[in-house]
């Protein structure tokens, strides 16, 4: 917890209140306890206040029951990662207490449900223990016997009091959340909340107060990464999609199934992954970029169809919410091990576009960009996110919807002639013409997965195969020309540049911030465009002595992670090294700094030898 001022008698009602700029709160319980909704309330509150917010949720892969945690980091400055250590741990059970105490910083505050948790003598000195009979006090507050219901809202009240959060805003949020379920539910929730908020103990009241932010964050929306992708696709004009349930992609499918009808569209739940991608491609062929998506094994299943879309030059967006692999792997853990399948999955030379979203806000805009590229280049676009971003809630500046929303109604204007695979087109990207378009010279296109001539008819001519292969690849080069050159985070030049993508970006940026303070400055580079790579990377790399690619995947037999492998293949630069891990947990800032230092020292040893 960063304290901007030690204490301040002038703030709030409590005399011991500390002004802080940020705090990490971890809530640990079981998945049916509504842990996520406490996090959701805090995130929404932050979105309506001056605080930035980033949350992290882990859910067990079991259907119900089992341990569950939610971590929320609230701050007055930019919050880049979910936080390495918690300042406050709220533990509902003995296992929550024992398994998560190590995540609490020394001297941090442990709030535990004294109905379920027996404190460990050894830890009493290390952490400040505050026992509150959450379960029985909740029952007392709301009456009845629904022991597990309402505990989360009671705990929210406690947290509200500890951090002196805005009571009025929180009550409004609770009202909004439960209004649809009827007055009695609202009343019960409110009773539980107020009882928690009014809990009398010097230990807990007005411990902290957030400093005010320098930035105006008054107009923010709060959502998860998966929601941001769903709404980004809608904003971009997508009106059709198809999918099959798989964690952690399913949220997007459920959202689109619910939301698309409002726009005259629909999302179809299919019998399997292959049907899903095929139906989406069929709809894209029908004239409007469609979406499919999946995670882990589902992406493997879709690869043949994606290859068809490459060959047939039909636009498509494939969302991949990465989880731990291979095979069924770790369905509810994070990993960045699908970069290779996204770039290279499937047989044959099949160049496609790969984009990676770095945070929740980025999910929204990257989804929009994916649709745009798919349409303009008639190519499948793989949109990579991961379990960590998917389930995390962040607040971000509200997009200006009126300006950015697109209408992609198919254009069926008759055309004098149409060569579906014209080798002479400037950027190599022929425009797809949807069925229903009258072609006045009477020559109609067949889109096909067989190698073909310019009219779409099968041909195994050596020149044509080479020409068409070049055409499919050249349009990616044309796209690369128009991509913005990525910006270095931190100093423009120096000793170490860490390169990352996806959810690794936040911790990398924070590592840059932290490293700046101890004289071992590093800079970071985030890549959103993985295939094709943007121009200008060579020049950026030339400004640094060492380039470390930090990823949540394995270094493989050659010692380089998946992005590192792509960069080495592209730049043949021996300075590019991999920093990898596969513990299925997000990068912590200190881990990155430690590993960078290890590499730096090892390099120094080699240099000195």
């Amino acid at each position, binding site marked *: 917890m960063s304290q901007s001022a030690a204490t301040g008698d002038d703030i709030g009602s409590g005399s011991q209140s500390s002004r802080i700029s940020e705090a990490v709160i971890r809530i640990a319980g079981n998945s049916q306890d509504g842990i996520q909704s406490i996090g959701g309330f805090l995130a*929404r509150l932050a*979105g309506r206040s001056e605080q930035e917010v980033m949350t992290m949720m882990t859910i067990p892969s079991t259907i119900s029951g089992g341990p569950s945690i939610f971590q929320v980091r609230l701050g007055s400055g930019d919050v880049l990662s979910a936080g390495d250590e918690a300042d406050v741990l709220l533990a509902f059970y003995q296992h929550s207490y024992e398994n998560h105490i190590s995540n609490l910083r020394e001297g941090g505050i442990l709030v535990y449900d004294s109905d379920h948790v027996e404190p460990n003598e050894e830890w009493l000195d290390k952490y400040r223990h505050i026992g509150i009979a959450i379960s029985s006090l909740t029952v007392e507050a709301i009456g009845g016997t629904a022991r597990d219901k309402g505990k989360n809202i009671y705990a929210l009240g406690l947290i509200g009091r500890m951090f002196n959060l805005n009571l009025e805003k929180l009550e409004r949020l609770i009202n*909004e959340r439960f209004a649809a379920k009827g007055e009695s539910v609202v009343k019960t929730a409110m009773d539980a909340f107020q009882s928690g908020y009014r809990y009398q103990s010097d230990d807990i009241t007005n411990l902290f107060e957030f400093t005010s932010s320098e930035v105006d964050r008054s107009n923010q*929306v*709060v*959502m998860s990464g998966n*929601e941001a992708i769903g*709404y980004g696709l*809608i*904003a971009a004009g997508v*009106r*059709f999609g*198809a999918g099959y349930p798989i964690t952690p992609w399913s949220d997007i499918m459920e959202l689109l199934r619910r939301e*698309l*009808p*409002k*726009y*005259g*569209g*629909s999302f179809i739940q299919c*019998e*399997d992954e292959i*049907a*899903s991608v*095929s*139906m*989406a491609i*069929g*709809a894209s*062929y*029908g*004239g409007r970029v*469609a979406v499919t998506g999946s995670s882990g094994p589902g992406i493997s299943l879709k690869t043949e*169809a994606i290859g*068809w879309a490459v060959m047939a030059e039909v636009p498509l967006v494939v969302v991949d919410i990465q989880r731990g692999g291979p095979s069924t792997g770790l369905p509810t853990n994070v990993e960045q091990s699908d970069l290779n399948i996204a770039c290279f999955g499937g047989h044959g030379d099949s160049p496609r576009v790969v984009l990676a979203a770095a945070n929740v806000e980025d999910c929204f805009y990257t989804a929009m960009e994916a649709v745009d590229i798919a349409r303009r280049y008639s190519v499948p676009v793989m949109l990579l996110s991961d379990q960590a971003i998917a389930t995390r809630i962040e607040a971000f500046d*509200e*997009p200006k*919807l009126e300006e950015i*929303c697109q209408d992609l*109604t*198919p254009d*069926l*204007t*008759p055309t004098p002639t149409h060569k579906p695979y014209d080798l002479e087109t400037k950027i190599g990207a022929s425009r797809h013409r*949807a*069925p*229903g*378009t*009258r*072609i006045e010279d*009477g*020559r*109609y*296109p*067949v*889109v*096909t*997965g*067989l190698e073909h001539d310019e009219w779409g*008819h099968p041909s195994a001519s050596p020149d044509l195969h080479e020409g068409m292969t070049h055409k499919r690849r050249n349009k990616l080069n044309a796209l690369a020309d128009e991509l913005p050159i990525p910006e270095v985070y931190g100093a423009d030049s120096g000793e170490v540049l860490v390169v990352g993508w996806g959810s690794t970006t936040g911790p990398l940026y924070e590592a840059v911030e932290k490293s700046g303070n101890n004289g071992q400055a590093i800079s970071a580079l985030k890549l959103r465009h993985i295939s094709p790579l943007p121009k200008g990377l060579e020049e950026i790399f030339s400004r640094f002595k060492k380039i470390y690619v930090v990823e949540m995947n394995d270094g493989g037999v050659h010692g380089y992670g998946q992005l590192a492998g792509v960069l080495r293949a592209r730049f043949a630069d021996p300075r590019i090294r991999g920093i990898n891990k596969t513990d299925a947990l997000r990068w912590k800032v200190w881990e990155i700094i430690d590993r960078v230092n290890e590499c730096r020292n090892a390099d120094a040893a080699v240099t000195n030898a």
Partner: protein
Amino acid sequence: MSDSATLEAPPQDAEERQPVTKKEITADHPTWCPGCGDFSVLAIYYKLIQKRNIHHEKVTTVAGIGCSSRFPYFVQAHGAHYIHGRALSFASGVSLSRPDLHVFAFGGDGDAFSIGGNHFMHTARKNVKMTYVVMDNFVYGLTKKQTSPTSPLGFKSKTDNWGAFDRPINPMKLAISAGATFVARTSHTNPKHLLEMMDLAMDHDGFGFIECLSECTEFYAGAFDASNPRKGGEYLLVPEDHDVTDEAAAYKLAGEDFPGKFGVYYQVQRPTKNALEAGVSDAAKAKFEGKKDWEVLQTTFNRMK
């Protein structure tokens, strides 16, 4: 979907368009072997397009992989040659997103019942509006004589030298039990009957499935002689008193020994997937009447603050 009005092509010049001629609808010369049954299915497809006076741009022909799946190349109209077994899923995507088009899908027995078996069942039960013609030749032809899912017991192929012993799929039974709403059987040897079945299938509001026996002269010559009067067989029609809405009767008909009967086995009206999805969409849209798409999204975002 409900925005079908916007998908209609802009009005053409005032003069009446002439119906397409056979020449105009013909594209590449088929790659099929001489004598292949698929030629007559193609010829009947041209006839159907002419008879129904459909213009080029309104024809969408989709196929997967196999000899018969080369179909789209031979038709001068919009078409897609998709991957093996998944033509129905692709065709569903076109059908569900483009209510202004009638989608035709063509395939063979391997494409439909083996690699695409799952999609066949689910497209049937979802009753996605389209016409699906399976040219069933009881053998893998493109890959040169391996056992197919409809190869009869004892059929000697390169993968069953000693004679096939896996029980074959009965396409009629499969379609009926999966929930198809139009199930018919015909043969390439009887073009008049084939055209009649395709006409009926096209009129059917839902998933119209036709099994068309189509002889592979190269790898399974004579397979359907028992149904061909010119080869000493009998082409027996579904009895006139057969009740096409009676699922049990249709199933019984499907259980008859080869060559069985030809005609419509089963036909019922059930809401199409297309209509059901459009209904959901119309109801959802009604709540936002007069709002632009961005305003609808804004309403959602306002709740996320």
